[in-house]
C-alpha cells in the first residue's frame, strides 16, 4: 500500500489521539474510565455500521443481530461448555461473519429501503428465538450472567477496549482511503453505474458486509465478557440499534472518525446528564438533538468541525 503525505499527516493525528487517550488514566478517575469503556464499545459498533451502511448506503437496522450472534456464541461456548475465551472469541467472530452472511446475503439482493426492514426483521427473529429455542443453553429470557472476564479493573479494561477500538479505527480508516473505499461509496451514489464500470457489486457489498460483521463480532464478543452477562432484552432491541445509529449519524456517517466522535459525545453526554435527568428524559433529549441535527445537517458533527477547521484556515490566510 502506498502511503501518501496526506495519509501520513492524518496518521500523525491518530497517533496523537492514541497517546492522549493512553495518558488519560493518569489524570481521571475510574468512574470516568468506566464511562469511556462504554464509549469504546459503542464506537466499535458504530464504525461497523458506518463501514457497511455509511459507505454503501445499504442501511442496516440489524446490527444488534450481528453483535448478538457474537455475544451468544462466545457466552455459550465459554459459559456452558467451558471453552477458553482465547478460542471462544475468535469462534464468535467467525460465527458472526458466517451466520451474518447467511442471512444478509439474500437481503443484499434487495434494493434500498427494503434492506433496512429485512435486517430489522432478522433482529426481531433472533430476539424471539433466543427466548424459546433451547433455553437451557441460551438462558431464555433471562440470558446468562457471570461470564468470565478477560482482564479485571477499570484501568486494564480501559486500555483493552481502547486498544481494540483504536486498531479497528485505524484499519477501517486506512481501508476507506483505498480505492476500495471509493468503490464502496460509489455504490451508495449509483450502483448501476458501478456495475457498468466493470465491478461486481455483489462482491464489493459482500466484502463490506463481511468486514462490518467481523468488527461487530469482535466488539460484541469482548463486550459481553466485559459486562459479564447477556440477555435478549437489551441486546436485540430497538433502543440499542438506536444508540448505534445515532452515534454513527451524530458523528457523521461515512468517515470512521465521525462514529468514534459520536460514540464519545453520546456516552459522555448520557453520563453527565444522569444526575439531572435520571431516566428516559435523556433519550428524549439526545433523540431530539439527533433528529434536529439529522434534518438540518445530515453530515453530522464531523462535518461541522471540518467546516470550522476550514474556516479557521481561510481566516488565517
Amino acid at each position, binding site marked *: 500500500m502506498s502511503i501518501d503525505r496526506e495519509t501520513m499527516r492524518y496518521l500523525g493525528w491518530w497517533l496523537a489521539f492514541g497517546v492522549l487517550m493512553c495518558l488519560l488514566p493518569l489524570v481521571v478517575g475510574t468512574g470516568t474510565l468506566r464511562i469511556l469503556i462504554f464509549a469504546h464499545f459503542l464506537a466499535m459498533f458504530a464504525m461497523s455500521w458506518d463501514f457497511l451502511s455509511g459507505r454503501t448506503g445499504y442501511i442496516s437496522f440489524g446490527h444488534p443481530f450481528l453483535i448478538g450472534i457474537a455475544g451468544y456464541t462466545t457466552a455459550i461456548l465459554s459459559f456452558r461448555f467451558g471453552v477458553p475465551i482465547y478460542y471462544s472469541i475468535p469462534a464468535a467472530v467467525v460465527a458472526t461473519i458466517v451466520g451474518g452472511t447467511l442471512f444478509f446475503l439474500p437481503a443484499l439482493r434487495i434494493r434500498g429501503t427494503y434492506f433496512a426492514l429485512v435486517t430489522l426483521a432478522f433482529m426481531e427473529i433472533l430476539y424471539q428465538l433466543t427466548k424459546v429455542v433451547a433455553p437451557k443453553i441460551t438462558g431464555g429470557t433471562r440470558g446468562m450472567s457471570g461470564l468470565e472476564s478477560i482482564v479485571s479493573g477499570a484501568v486494564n479494561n480501559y486500555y483493552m477496549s481502547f486498544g481494540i477500538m483504536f486498531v479497528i479505527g485505524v484499519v477501517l480508516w486506512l481501508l476507506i482511503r483505498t480505492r476500495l473505499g*471509493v468503490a464502496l461509496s460509489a455504490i451508495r451514489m449509483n450502483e448501476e*453505474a458501478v456495475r457498468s*464500470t466493470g465491478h461486481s457489486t455483489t*462482491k464489493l457489498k459482500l466484502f463490506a458486509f463481511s468486514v462490518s460483521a467481523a468488527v461487530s463480532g469482535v466488539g460484541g464478543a469482548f463486550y459481553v465478557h466485559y459486562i459479564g452477562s447477556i440477555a435478549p432484552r437489551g441486546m436485540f432491541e430497538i433502543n440499542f440499534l438506536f444508540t448505534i445509529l445515532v452515534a454513527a449519524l451524530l458523528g457523521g456517517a461515512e468517515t470512521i472518525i465521525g462514529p468514534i466522535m459520536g460514540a464519545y459525545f453520546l456516552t459522555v453526554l448520557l453520563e453527565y446528564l444522569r444526575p439531572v435527568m435520571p431516566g428516559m428524559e435523556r433519550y428524549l433529549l439526545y433523540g431530539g438533538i439527533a433528529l434536529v441535527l439529522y434534518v438540518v445537517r445530515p453530515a453530522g458533527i464531523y462535518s461541522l468541525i471540518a467546516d470550522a477547521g476550514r474556516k479557521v484556515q481561510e481566516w488565517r490566510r
Partner: protein
Amino acid sequence: MTATAGPLLEVRDLHMTFGGIRAVQGISFQVAEGETLGLIGPNGAGKTTVFNMIMAELKPTSGEIWFGGENITRVPTHERVKRGIARTYQVPQPFGEMSVGSNIRVGMAPDDIWKLIAVGADPAAEAEIGRSVGFSDEQIDMLPSELAMGDLRRLEMARNVAVSPRLLLLDEVFAGLTLREIGQISELLVEKKRKDGLTYIIVSHDLRALAPLVDRVIVMSFGELIAEGSFDEVVKDEAVRDAYLGQ
C-alpha cells in the same frame, strides 16, 4: 488492439417484450472493429432498449449477442465491461458526491478486492484521462454538480475511457449541449478513435452532428430495423423519411 476475424459485435434476432408491448422485434446487426455505427430512429423506436440489452441491463426475451467471437448473451454486465464494452447514458450518471478525479478512479479500479486495497490510486493517470477528454486540471477536483452538461458528458466519456473499452455505446451524447459543446465532443470522439482504435455505436437524434462521425447507419422504427447504409443513403430513404416525418 487485437484483430478478430468477423465482426466485433454481432446482435442476432433480438426481441424484447415489456408486458404486452413489443419494444424490440427481431433486430440483427453487426459492427466491425474500428467502425462507427449510427443507430437512429424516431422517439420510442427501441434504441435505448437495444443498448440496455447489449450491456445486460435488460435480459432479452430472445436472441443472441456475440462479442469478439464469443456468445455473451448470458454474461453479466460487469463481465461484459471487462471484455471491452462500455456505455454512456442519455442522462449522465455521475457519482454525485465525488470529484471528477474520483469518478475516473472508480472506472480505473480493478474488479479484485485485494488489488483495490493494495494498489494505491494513481492521481496522475486519472488526471491524464481527465485531460484526454478535455478537462482542465482545475476541473479534476470539481464535483459533478459544478459542471455544465457538456462537461458531464465528458465525465461519462472519461469514466468509460478508464475501463479501456473496445466498443463504446454512446446514448444521445449530444442531447442538451450547445453547438460549441457538440463540436468539442465530436472532436473528442474522433480523436479517441484515432488514438485507441475504438469502435462506436452512437444513438443520436441530432443527425447533423452524427453525419460526419458515422461510417454506416442503421435505422429503427417501431422496434424493427427499417434501413441500413451510409448516412446519405439512409436519410434519402423513403421509409426513413416516413418514419421521421410521417406519411
